[in-house]
């Protein structure tokens, strides 16, 4: 198999495709964090008083907190005073009313990224909110959504136009003091997406947000809040990219999902932040808190993620299964190549009766990548008849990589059934040889095998993105096999 191996090794190293920088004038607050900076952000966004109070409360909490150390990731301490907490492309004061008002350079950026914002060129049936550095630059399809009663806009707009909803729901899933990065986000978040789907409405199209970090020395702190009212359905997708820079940039987002009775939220992520180069220089620190609250009976929240980017990923999209009969799902592909580190997984907290959860996690480690699955399945005493099934597989593609599995299973109800299975192995020489013997090129063979390994997760993605995810994986793995 030696020759296969060598051939595979030579496949390494296609470059990050989204690593260009958009040269655009920005309105950037100088680096540093203080109550004044927070006031500036709040003023720039013209926020109501309750928002400023909320931010300041979070900031004061944060000052007393320390960064978590339990994750299986290593990085030098972050200088929180060296980061700029607000950066926005310069534009007319009020923000764009339509795409025509958006700076053409920005539109070009999104075109290059394959996310054309012009509606006629957009992916069929997908509404896009584009967040550039700290602010939302455009949201497409607003009218059509409005007809259905669906609110889909930037977070800033929602604060202006739907303050009651914000005040009622913000921070009810991820409390201000939840964890170090979530608290920091609560203090300084600048924009993000907001979705409200009213009672009984099936959102007529996929919603998606595209996050782009452009400015250097900035952090991106966005906040997403999705509320699915009784009996409603919504599918939401987020994508992320950043330029190649040899500094590390911080992305600390918070996502809150709320599903009322019989509501369903499907949240998909294709995360492709700049991972750093093959020597581990640069890349995004992706420290994200995502949590869904199945508040209502028979509600369902489903997380699907394909994580190929970031230097360090630290995220555990979770479900609180509060409503009786509610369902939580987590499907994940996480890839760690070169010097990437991923510590990701989920938490399923079963509180209601007959709650069910499924976890499928596929980790791929290559180069010096370190990939850890960390998951908590907790069955509380009231969760009569709860069920969980967890499957967690790791694929190893180099001698120097690492794959780790750290499940926590805590059960306090004797009628519950929890099953966890995990396996770790390298790409089988037999499988590879079989493909090569059938005349398939090594690179294709590896892609085929890796895709097969991830299939269970890919099939959960909305159609439009499943192909994108596959391609992304192929690109990220180039030169990784060895």
């Amino acid at each position: 198999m030696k020759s296969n191996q060598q051939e595979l090794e030579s496949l390494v190293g296609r470059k990050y495709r989204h690593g260009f920088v958009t040269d655009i004038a920005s309105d950037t607050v100088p680096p540093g964090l203080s109550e004044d900076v927070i006031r500036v952000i709040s003023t720039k966004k013209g926020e109501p008083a309750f928002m400023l109070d909320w931010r300041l409360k979070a900031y004061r909490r944060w000052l007393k907190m320390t960064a978590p150390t339990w994750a299986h990731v290593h990085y030098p301490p972050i200088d929180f005073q060296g980061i700029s907490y607000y950066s926005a492309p310069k534009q007319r004061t009020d923000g764009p009313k339509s795409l025509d008002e958006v700076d053409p350079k920005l539109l070009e950026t999104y075109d290059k990224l394959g996310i054309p914002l012009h509606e006629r060129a957009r992916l069929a049936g997908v509404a896009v909110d584009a967040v550039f550095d700290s602010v939302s630059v455009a949201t497409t399809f607003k009218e059509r959504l409005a007809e259905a009663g669906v609110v889909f806009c930037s977070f800033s707009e929602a604060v202006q136009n739907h303050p009651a909803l914000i005040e009622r729901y913000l921070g009810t899933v991820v409390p201000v003091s939840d964890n170090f990065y979530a608290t920091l986000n609560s203090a300084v978040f600048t924009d993000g997406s907001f979705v409200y789907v009213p009672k009984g409405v099936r959102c007529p199209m996929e919603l998606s947000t595209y996050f782009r970090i452009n400015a250097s020395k900035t952090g991106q702190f966005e906040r997403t809040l999705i509320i699915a009212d009784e009996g409603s359905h919504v599918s939401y997708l987020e994508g992320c990219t950043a330029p190649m820079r040899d500094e590390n940039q911080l992305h600390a987002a918070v996502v809150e999902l709320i599903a009322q009775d019989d509501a369903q939220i499907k949240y998909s992520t294709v995360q492709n932040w700049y991972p750093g180069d093959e020597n581990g220089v640069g890349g995004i620190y992706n420290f994200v808190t995502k949590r869904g609250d199945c508040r209502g009976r028979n509600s369902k929240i489903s997380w699907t993620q394909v994580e190929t980017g970031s230097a360090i990923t630290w995220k555990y999209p979770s479900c609180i299964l509060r409503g009786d009969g509610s369902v939580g799902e987590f499907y994940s592909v996480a890839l760690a190549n070169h010097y990437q580190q991923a510590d990701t997984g989920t938490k399923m907290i079963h509180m209601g009766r007959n709650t069910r959860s499924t976890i499928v996690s596929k980790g791929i480690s290559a180069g010096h990548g370190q990939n850890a699955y960390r998951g908590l399945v907790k069955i509380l005493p009231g969760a009569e008849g709860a069920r969980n099934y967890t499957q967690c597989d790791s694929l190893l593609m180099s001698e120097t990589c690492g794959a780790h599995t750290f499940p926590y299973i805590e059960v306090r109800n004797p009628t519950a059934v929890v099953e966890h299975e995990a396996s770790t192995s390298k790409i089988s020489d037999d499988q590879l040889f079989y493909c090569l013997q059938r005349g398939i090129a090594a690179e294709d063979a590896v892609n085929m095998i890796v895709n097969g390994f991830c299939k269970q997760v890919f099939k959960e993605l909305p159609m439009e993105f499943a192909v994108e995810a596959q391609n992304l994986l192929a690109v990220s793995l180039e030169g990784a096999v060895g």
Partner: protein
Amino acid sequence: MNAESVMERIAASHAGQAARMAGGAAWARRRELALARVLGSGLPDRRNENWKYLDHAKIAEREFDPAPRVTLTADRLAPCLLPLAAARRLVLVDGHFEPQLSDADAGTGVVVHDLATLFSTDPAGAMRLLREPGDDSDDRYALLADAFAAGGLVIRVDANAAPAGTLYLLHVSSASLPGTSHARVVIEVGAGARLRLVEHFVALGDAPAFSNLAAEMQIAAGATVEHVRLHQSGGQSAQLETWVIEQQADSSYSQHLFALGGRLLRSNLNLSLAGSRAQCRLAGLFMVDGERQADLYTQIEHHGAATRTIQNFRGIASERGRGAFNGRIIVHPAARGADASQSSRNLLLTPLAEINSRPQLEIHTDDVKCRHGATIGTLDPAQLFYLLARGLDPDTARSLLTFAFCEDVITGVPLPELRRGIEELVVGRLPDRDVIRSFR
């Protein structure tokens, strides 16, 4: 509970005993240093991931002074003894070796030293022999034992020796009065030697005693060790143990651990597969009912190439019992061709019981095969229905399935008479035990 903090009470207990402890200045210094490290870092608590499921208050409330030494007669022990034919017995009472209760001859090729004697006669030798615990929180109780090091055993098995019969190491907690005992056990198994060791933990009284065992075993190349560990202490006893085992090339180690007694048991095992092709097989069973708690922690490190682990742990919790399995397998970069499997299966039988399981894999190279599985649940409804459809009583059917669940661990116990004894103990802990007995 005592109003003083745990650390103050430990320090006070130490101050009260230090002058009486043997080993001269060097040992006095070592104990002082160990104590200072314990006091500096404290005992592990719930905030520590590896200790998060343990009821630390149950330890904190214990009396840290030693209970007065008791003299036991062989008659007193007789009812506790396991029926092991041709076994050589070694007895520790509250951490102190009792030659008059033990067999003088531990078998051909086996040398036994009383640590208490060694501290006086060869303090430097004892210093070399006893591992100095590290700063890791997993080693904190071993460090505490080091601070109080006074008694225990050293067992050496010569290279290529194959002592006939079983070495029966009985740990007795007198438990007539509250108190803490610390013990050290060091076992060295020479190259190519074979050892069968049965460790048995009993308590004679009902007092809330706390026993802290720090033990280590060196298994040289090509040696084979079969180790059965049976915890059967009385209702109030709390036991903490820290085992450190290192295996050299081509050695083989098997352990069957039964946690069937005591108010609280925390068992730490840190096993290193240092040499190539070393292999270990670990099986464990905890049964916690009443208010009992068992917390089994294992860390297995694969360093050598082609090393193997098979781990199979089972747990049953009922009433207000709480059980935890916490097992980490680490495969280091040099351990190419390592193969590890880990299984943790658990039954939760009643509403107030609790089980936590953390099987963990940490893999640092690609040429490995590792898998783990964990389940927590009730009895399989399909199996239950099958038995009911054959006319069995629901209670009988449940007990039978519960017992069958344990069988998987029990069947591997090396000695038939021991296996039957353990079976009987397990059955004795089940509801409807008479019916199951009729089945055997």
